[in-house]
C-alpha cells in the first residue's frame, strides 16, 4: 500500500492484515515502555485544514510510539489561511522531506488530489475528507468490534455475519461511508437508519440495507449499534424540525438502551452530543465502546503508518 485514501480500496485480506498489525501495536501500548524504534528517522506531517484535536492527537501519539518525527501543520493561522493553495502546501512539505502526510480537509477528495497530482511523493493518509471518508476511523471501529467479539482470539478474523446498525446523519458522515465499505468487505451486515433527509440519494446501491425506524432496528437485535454525531449546523437547514424531535425519533435514549440484547455494543465516533443522539446512560454503560475506540485508534493508526512507511502488505 502506498496511500490510505478510502476503505473502498482495501481488500478483505489487506483489512484483516491491518487489524492484525494493530493487535501487535496494541500489545506495545500495554507495555511499560510504549515505544518501538520502527519509524526512527521518518518524518510525519499532520496536515489539518480542519480542527480535530482527537484525530490529530491520536495520529501524533501513534507516530511517536513508532519513533517517527512528527510535525503538526494546522491550517488555522498559517500560510494556508492566507490563501496558499493545496498544491503549494504539498510541495512545501515535500521539499522539507515529509515521508507521510496525514491530511484532514473539509473538501471531499482532497487527499486523492494530494496523492495523485505528483506534487509530493509522500504517503498520504486520509484523516477525514469532507463528507467522503475517514478510513482510520472505520478501521478502529472494526478493530474494536473484533476485539469485543473475539477477545484475545481476534487475530486473523474478519466480521462475518456481525449485524451492525448505523444511525444518524448518513448523508454528511464520512464515518458512515468508510464503515459501510469496510464492514461489507469484512462480511458484516450493515443496516442504515436515518430520516430520508439525512440519507444520500443513491444509498440503495450501497452494500447495506436502509430504514427510517430506529425502534425497528433495535427490535432486529443488532450486535452493534453505532450512533453518529448530529452536527448543529444541520438543524439550521431543515433536515429535521428540531433537537427534541430528532432525539425522540432517532436518539438512543434510556428506554431504547434497555431493549437492546445484553451483548449489543454501543459505538460512537465522538465527540458525543449527550441527550441528543445518545443518552448519558447509554454512553456510560458497559455496552459503550467509546473509550475502547479511542485506544483502538492509536493502535490502528500505528498499524497504518507502519504499513505505509515500511510496506509489508501488497
Amino acid at each position, binding site marked *: 500500500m502506498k496511500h490510505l485514501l478510502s476503505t*473502498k480500496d482495501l481488500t478483505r485480506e489487506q483489512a484483516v492484515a491491518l487489524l492484525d498489525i494493530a493487535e501487535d501495536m496494541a500489545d506495545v501500548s500495554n507495555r511499560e515502555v510504549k515505544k518501538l524504534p520502527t519509524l526512527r528517522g521518518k518524518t510525519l506531517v499532520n496536515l489539518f485544514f480542519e480542527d480535530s484535536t482527537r484525530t490529530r492527537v491520536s495520529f501524533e501519539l501513534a507516530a511517536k510510539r513508532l519513533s517517527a518525527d512528527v510535525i503538526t501543520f494546522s491550517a488555522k493561522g498559517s500560510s494556508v489561511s492566507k490563501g496558499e*493553495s*493545496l*498544491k503549494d502546501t504539498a510541495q512545501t512539505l515535500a521539499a522539507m522531506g515529509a515521508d507521510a502526510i496525514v491530511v484532514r*480537509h*473539509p*473538501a*471531499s*477528495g*482532497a487527499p*486523492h*488530489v494530494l496523492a*495523485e*497530482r505528483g506534487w509530493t511523493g509522500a504517503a498520504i493518509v486520509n484523516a477525514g*475528507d*469532507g*463528507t*467522503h*471518508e475517514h478510513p482510520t476511523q472505520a478501521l478502529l471501529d472494526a478493530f474494536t468490534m473484533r476485539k469485543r467479539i473475539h477477545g484475545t482470539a481476534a487475530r486473523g478474523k474478519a466480521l462475518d455475519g456481525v449485524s451492525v446498525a448505523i444511525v444518524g446523519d448518513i448523508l*454528511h458522515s*464520512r464515518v458512515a*461511508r468508510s464503515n459501510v465499505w469496510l464492514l461489507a468487505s469484512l462480511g458484516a451486515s450493515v443496516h442504515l437508519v436515518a430520516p430520508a433527509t439525512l440519507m*444520500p*440519494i*443513491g*444509498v440503495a*446501491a*450501497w452494500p447495506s440495507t436502509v430504514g427510517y425506524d430506529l425502534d425497528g432496528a433495535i427490535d432486529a437485535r443488532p450486535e452493534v449499534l453505532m450512533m453518529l454525531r448530529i452536527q448543529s449546523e444541520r438543524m439550521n437547514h431543515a433536515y429535521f424540525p428540531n433537537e427534541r424531535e430528532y432525539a425522540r425519533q432517532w436518539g438512543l435514549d434510556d428506554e431504547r438502551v434497555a431493549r437492546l440484547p445484553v451483548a449489543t455494543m454501543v459505538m460512537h465516533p465522538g465527540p458525543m452530543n449527550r441527550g441528543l443522539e445518545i443518552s448519558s446512560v447509554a454512553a456510560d454503560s458497559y455496552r459503550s465502546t467509546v473509550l475502547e475506540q479511542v485506544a483502538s485508534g492509536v493502535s490502528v493508526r500505528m498499524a497504518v503508518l507502519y504499513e505505509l512507511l515500511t510496506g509489508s502488505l501488497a
Partner: protein
Amino acid sequence: MSIVIRGAALPDGTQRDLFIDGGTYAREISGTPRHVIDAAGLLALPGLVDLHTHLREPGFEQSETVLSGSQAAAVGGFTAVFAMANTMPVGDTAGVVEQVHALGEAHGYVTVQPIGAVTVGLAGERLAEIGAMAQSRAAVRVFSDDGQCIHDSLLMRRSLEYVHTFDGVVAQHAQDPRLTIDAQMNEGVVSGELGLTGWPAVAEESIIARDALIAEHVGARLHICHVSTAGSVEVIAWAKARGIQITAEVTPHHLLLNEELVRGFDSRFKVNPPLRRDEDTHALRAGLAAGTIDIVATDHAPHPPEAKECAWAEAANGMVGLESALSVIQHAMVDPGHLTWTDVSRVLSVKPAQIGRIPGYETPFANGSPANLTIIDPNAKGEFTIDRLVGKGRNSPYIGMALPGRVIATIHNGYPTVIDGQLLDSESVAAYAKESRG
C-alpha cells in the same frame, strides 16, 4: 482576396471545387487565386457557429481574451461565436457589448457576436438595457444571464416579453438555485459514495418546464442552454409538441462524458451543469439526433491553472471546448451513425446562426453567400494533445483521449484564418479582416 478549394467533399457527399471571391462563393474567379487549397479526400463544412462561448474579456484576461478565444474558435473550425455576458464589467450595456464586438471585428478570426445580460449585473433583480443593446452596433439578439438562472418567475416572464419586443431570445441557464446550494456534481449513486453535494436533475428539468409554459403564455421565444439530463429532453419534446417556441443546446462534453469520471476527483471534469449519468448521455445523443435538441454549443469556459489545481469543491466549474468540439461530435455522433455530416452542418452552423439571428449562414456553399467554411480531415486519428489548445485555457477534459478528425483550414468571410492545420498570425488575419470590410 480569392481562394480556390479543389476537390472537397461537401456534407451531402457530392464533390466539387469551391471558388471564393470578394468574401462570397462565386461560380468562378478571374485571374490567379491568392490561395489554392487542395482538399482532395477532405470534407468541407459550413463555418461552425457557437451560440455559447465565454471569452472572458473584459475583466478576466488572465483566463481568455477576445483574441485568444477567437483563435481557439478558428482552429476548431468556427467562424462565429456568441460571447457570454459574464465579464467584468458585465455585458449589460450597449458600451460593453459594442467593445467586445469591435474587438472581435478588429482581430478578424471569427465573427464575435456578443450576448447581452438579461438583468443588470446578472443579479436577477431588474432588466438590463436590452433595447439599447439590441439597437447598438453589436445588434444583440441573444440575451442570457448564463452562470445564473433567472429563477424569479415574474422576472422570467418580463424578460421573455421584453426580449421578444426586440426580436431577441432569452437563453436560460436552467438551474433552480435553492435545489443546488453548494452543489458539486450530479446527484445520484456516485455523489452519494463520494460525499459530494448533489446537483439533482430536477433542478434543471423543473425550470425548463416552468419557462416553457411561461414562453407559451406570453408567445415568446425561449432557448435552453446546456441541456444535460434525459428528463430535460423529454420536457423539451413535450414543449415542442405543444407548439411552444423553444430551442435547446447540448454541449459536446455532455454528449460524451459521464459522472463516473468524477471518481478520481480530477477537477478538469468539474463543470456546470455537471456531467450526468451514462443514460443521460445516451438520451442527449438521441435527442440531438431526433431534433428535440436543436444545436450543439460548446460552453467554452477557460480558467487559469490555479483555478483547477485544488480540491474538487474549491475548483472552478468549466471546460474549454472550442478546439475539441468538432472531434468530439464526430466521435460521439457521426462515427456511431447518430448524425450525418449534413446534420452536423445543421446543428453546428445553420441552426445556431438562425437562433442567434446572424445572417449569411442560411444557404451553405451557395453562390453569392458569405464564404464561411471549414475543411476537415475526418479520417485523421490520434490522441487529443495539449498542443491542440490555442486559447489560454488548458482545462480540457479530452487531453490524452483518442478523438478523430482534424481541422485543416478555416475561412471566415472569404479569407483564411487557418491553413494546413496552422493558425494564421494575428497581423495577417487582422489585415485580411480590414481588407474584407473595405
